[in-house]
C-alpha cells in the first residue's frame, strides 16, 4: 500500500509535466523496435504557436518520435498528451504529413483525390466524398499553389508537387498541431519557398508545427524552436539559444565535415550581426 503510494506520482506532478495548454507534451517516452530501443527517455513540451525543427543525424529516431506520438508504433514506456489529453481523443486537432517515399505514387488517383483523403474522418464511415468536400480540397490545393494540377494523376507530378499535395491533405484537416516528416526532402527551390510560406501562415494563425528537418543551413532561417535528437533528447529551446556548435557537436558526434560547413555559415552569420 505504502509502496504503491510512493511509486505513483502525485496528481499535481502529472499536471506539471503535462500542462493542459501545451499542444504536445511527451513524458519519459521510450520506443523500441523488437528489443532495441530507438529513442530513450524523451521529455519534451512543445511551445504553443511556434515552428519547431526536429533535427538529428540519420537513425536518430526523428520519424519514430512522430510515429510514437501518433500511436503508429507502440511505446515501450512513457506517455504523450496532446492539448492535455491522450492522442486518440484529440485526433481531430492533429495533422500529419508522412514522408513522401512512404506511399506508392503510381496509385490510380489524382491530386484532388489525395487531398480529399484528409477529410475522410470528417466525412465518416461509408459515406462518399461530396461536392463540398471536393471544394474544400480544391481550396487547400490552391493554397499550396497546385490548383492547376488537381486532375493530374499523382505519378505525373514532380517530387516537389507531390510534397505540396501531401501538405494540402494535412491543411484540409484544419488541425491545431501539425507533425511533418521531412517535407523539404528532395523538393525544388520554388516548392521549398511555398512550403515555408505555408508554415509561416500556420504560425500566424496560432498553429504549432513540428517538422523533421535535414538541412542544417536553413534551420535558423525557418524555425523558431529546435529539438535536437540523437536517440536521446540533446537539447531543446529557441533556435537562437539552442542551435549552437556545441549542441550540434553533441547531436552529430564525429561527423565533423558537415559540422564545419554549418559552423562556418553560422560564424559568418554571427559576424554579420
Amino acid at each position: 500500500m505504502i509502496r504503491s503510494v510512493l511509486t505513483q506520482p502525485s496528481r499535481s506532478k502529472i499536471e506539471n509535466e503535462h500542462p493542459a495548454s501545451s499542444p504536445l507534451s511527451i513524458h519519459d517516452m521510450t520506443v523500441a523496435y523488437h528489443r532495441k530501443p530507438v529513442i530513450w527517455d524523451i521529455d519534451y513540451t512543445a511551445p504553443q504557436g511556434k515552428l519547431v525543427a526536429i533535427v538529428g543525424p540519420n537513425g536518430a529516431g526523428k520519424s519514430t518520435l512522430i510515429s510514437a506520438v501518433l500511436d503508429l508504433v507502440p511505446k515501450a514506456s512513457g506517455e504523450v498528451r496532446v492539448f492535455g489529453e491522450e492522442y486518440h481523443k484529440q485526433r481531430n486537432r492533429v495533422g500529419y504529413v508522412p514522408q513522401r517515399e512512404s506511399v506508392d505514387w503510381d496509385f490510380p488517383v489524382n491530386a484532388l483525390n489525395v487531398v480529399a483523403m484528409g477529410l475522410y474522418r470528417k466525412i465518416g464511415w461509408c459515406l462518399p466524398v461530396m461536392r463540398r468536400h471536393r471544394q474544400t480540397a480544391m481550396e487547400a490545393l490552391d493554397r499550396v499553389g497546385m490548383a492547376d494540377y488537381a486532375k493530374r494523376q499523382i505519378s505525373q507530378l514532380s517530387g516537389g508537387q507531390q510534397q505540396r499535395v501531401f501538405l494540402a491533405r494535412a491543411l484540409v484537416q484544419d488541425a491545431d498541431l501539425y507533425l511533418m516528416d521531412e517535407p523539404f526532402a528532395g523538393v525544388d527551390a520554388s516548392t521549398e519557398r511555398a512550403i515555408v510560406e505555408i508554415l509561416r501562415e500556420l504560425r500566424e494563425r496560432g498553429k504549432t508545427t513540428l517538422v523533421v528537418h535535414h538541412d542544417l543551413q536553413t534551420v535558423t532561417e525557418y524555425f523558431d524552436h529546435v529539438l535536437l535528437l540523437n536517440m536521446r533528447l540533446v537539447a531543446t529551446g529557441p533556435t537562437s539559444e539552442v542551435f549552437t556548435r556545441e549542441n550540434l557537436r553533441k547531436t552529430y558526434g564525429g561527423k565533423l565535415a558537415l559540422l564545419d560547413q554549418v559552423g562556418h555559415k553560422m560564424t559568418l552569420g554571427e559576424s554579420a550581426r
Partner: protein
Amino acid sequence: MNSVPTRIGFALVVVAVWFGNPSGAAAEPPHDTHPSRATARSLSRDRLEWPSWDDVTRTLLLRDYNTRIVAIGTTMLGVAAGIVGVFTLLRRRSLLGDVISHSTLPGIAIAFLVMEAIEPGGGKWLPGLLIGAWLAGLAGIVCTKLILRFTRIKEDAALAIVLSVFFGAGMALFKVVQDIPSGSQAGLNHFILGKTASMVLADVWIIAEVSLAIVVIIGLLYKEFTLLSFDDKFAASQGWPIFRLDLLLMLLVAGVTVIGLQSVGLLLVVAMLITPAAAARFWSDRLGRTTLIAALLGGSGAFCGVLISAMFPRLAAGPVIVLTGVCFFLVSMSFGVRRGVVVRVAMHRQLKAAVGRQHILRALFEFLEPQCNPTAPMSAQLVNHIVSASDLQPMRSWTPKRLRRLLRVAERSDFIAAVRAGGYRLTTRGAELAHRVVRNHRLWELYLIEYADIAPSHVDRDADDIEHLLAPDIVESLEQLLSQRYPHMTVPPSPHAIDATSELTT
C-alpha cells in the same frame, strides 16, 4: 509456385497435359481419373476434335441449360474477383491471396471429416465444405500475421511457410479422406483444379449471394479501402482501424477464393483475382474506372472462358477460364490506352518528333537572329530570310541525313516553305512558333541560372510555357530581369554562345 506468373504457367501445363494425354491420367495433383462420357467425345486419340458448327451456335446462344448455369455462376465470380482484386493488388497483397487459397485445402478435408462423423454420408454438404474452406483461409491469414508480428521473419518467407504448411496438411488429410469409403466418392479433389461443368443451380445461388455481399461491402467501404491501400500510416494517424480493415479485405479475398473453388479450383483462383485488376491498370489512371474495368474484364473473361471450355469439353474448364483471362490481360498490356506497350511506344515516338521539331525551329531562329533587328518584332522579320540546309548544319550536332529529314517534316507541317532548291523560308506560323519555342527555352535557362538549385523535373524547356510551371511572381521577376538587361526585346538572347558544341551540353 507462389506467384501469378507461375500459376499461369501451371494452367498452361495442365492444358498441355490434357492435350498430350488423352486418358486424362496426368500424374500430378490428384484429379478426376475417370473421364466422363461427355468429355470422351471431343478428344480422340492425340488430337483435339473441333466442335461442329451446331455445337458452336448451341454454346454461343446458351441453349444448354448446363452451360447457362455455369456461365452465370462463373461470370458473377469473375466480377467479384475483379473488384476485390483491384484492392488486393493496390494493397500489394497479391501473394497473400495465394496463401489464402492454398490454406483452404485442409479446411475442406476437416469439414468433410467432421460432417461425416456427425452424420455418415453427410460429408458432401457443399455449404459446410465451403465454410470449412473459408475458416481455414482465415486461419492462414492469422498465422501469417502472427509470424510477422512475433518473429523477425520477413513477409515473403512467412507467406511461403504458411502456404506450404497448410497445403501440405491439406494433401495429407485428403489421403485420410480417400481411405474412407464415402470419401473417395465425394469428389473433394475437384476443389483443387475446379470442375466447372458439375456446377448446379444451388452452387450458382451460393456464388450469387457471396458475390453480391462482396460487391456491397466494397461499395460501402470504397473510400476506406482506398485510403488503406494508398497510405495506411496516414489512415492510422486519423484513427481508422487499419488492422481490422485489412482483415476485412482479406476476408473478402477468402470469400472469392471459396466461391472460386468450385469453378477454377484453389490453385488457379488467385489468377482470377489478380489478372483482371492488373489488366485494368493499363486502361485507366483513375481508381473508379480501374475498378469498373476490372469487374468488366473479370466477368467477360470468365464468361468467354466458360463458352470456350463448353465447346471443348475435353479440356479442363478451370485452366481454360484462367487462360482466357490471361489473353484479356495480354491484350490490355499491349493496347491499354493509359500504359499499354503500344501507347508507350507511340508516345515515345511523338516525343522524339516534338523534340526534333523544336530543335529545327530553334536552329532556324538562332541562325537568323544576328541578321534581324532585335528591337523590332521578330516574327515579321524572320519570314523575310532564306536559309539553306548547309546554313543549319553547324547549328547542332546532327547528321546531314537527320537534318534533311527534320526539314522535310517541318515543310510538311507548314512551318517552312521551300523557295528554291535547298533554300527554305519560315512561314508566318513557323516564325511564331519558333519565336515561342526560343523564348520559353531562354526564359527557362535564365531561371535555372538565376534561381534554381534543383531544376524542376518533368519540364520540356522548349515546349512548356514557363507560366504554367512557375509561380507568376517568378515569371514576372524573370521578365523584369530580361527587360532590364535587354530592353525592347521579346526574346532574351541566349545566355551562352550558340554553336554545336554548346548544344551538346544543353
